[in-house]
């Protein structure tokens, strides 16, 4: 049963990677890479169960987090580099 899920995830990963390599626009690539990241999270999660040692979910958790930061970083640096570099006075807030 986990096998099925793993196979499916692997197929999805391959397809996403293919899209990332094929492009054609930068956004396509980023989207694909982002989707790929999500799949990796699932992959790790399922793999833990498959191996019978599911306590290693921390890794998947980290992935989920990192994936998000990575995407934010790409968008930030691609489009608004000036903005993080410049101050944003009330931004810190709360």
């Amino acid at each position: 049963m986990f096998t099925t899920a793993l196979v499916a995830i692997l197929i999805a990963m391959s397809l996403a990677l293919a899209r990332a390599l094929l492009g054609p626009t930068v956004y396509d690539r980023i989207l694909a890479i982002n989707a790929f990241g999500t799949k990796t999270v699932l992959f790790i999660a399922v793999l833990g169960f498959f191996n019978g040692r599911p306590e290693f979910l921390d890794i998947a958790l980290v992935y989920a987090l990192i994936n998000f930061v990575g995407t934010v970083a790409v968008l930030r640096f691609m489009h608004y580099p000036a903005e993080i570099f410049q101050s944003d006075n009330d931004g810190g807030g709360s």
Partner: protein
Amino acid sequence: MTLLIESLSWVLLVAGSLMLVVGAVGLHRLPEFFTRTHAGSLTDTGGAGLILTGLMLQAGPNLIAVKLALILLFLWFTSPTASHVLAQSALRDGIKPEAEDETS
């Protein structure tokens, strides 16, 4: 009871897998960026949700399930946000959501 949970999680896992594959095929086959965004979101939220819920059922009520829930939370928060921001900046960048025209 166990059997019920077992089979339920099985169903969820298979459904999730299916959704993943469909989403991935969509990501690959759909003609242009915005439609692909759609496929991507589908995978991230739907597929991931189903699979993680399936796993939660497997794990039973313990720390592992909590972690799985956290992962799910993360994904549900971050994935749409990322897609949203991505689409937004693509728009700003001048990419038009036109299905017919697949150009690079």
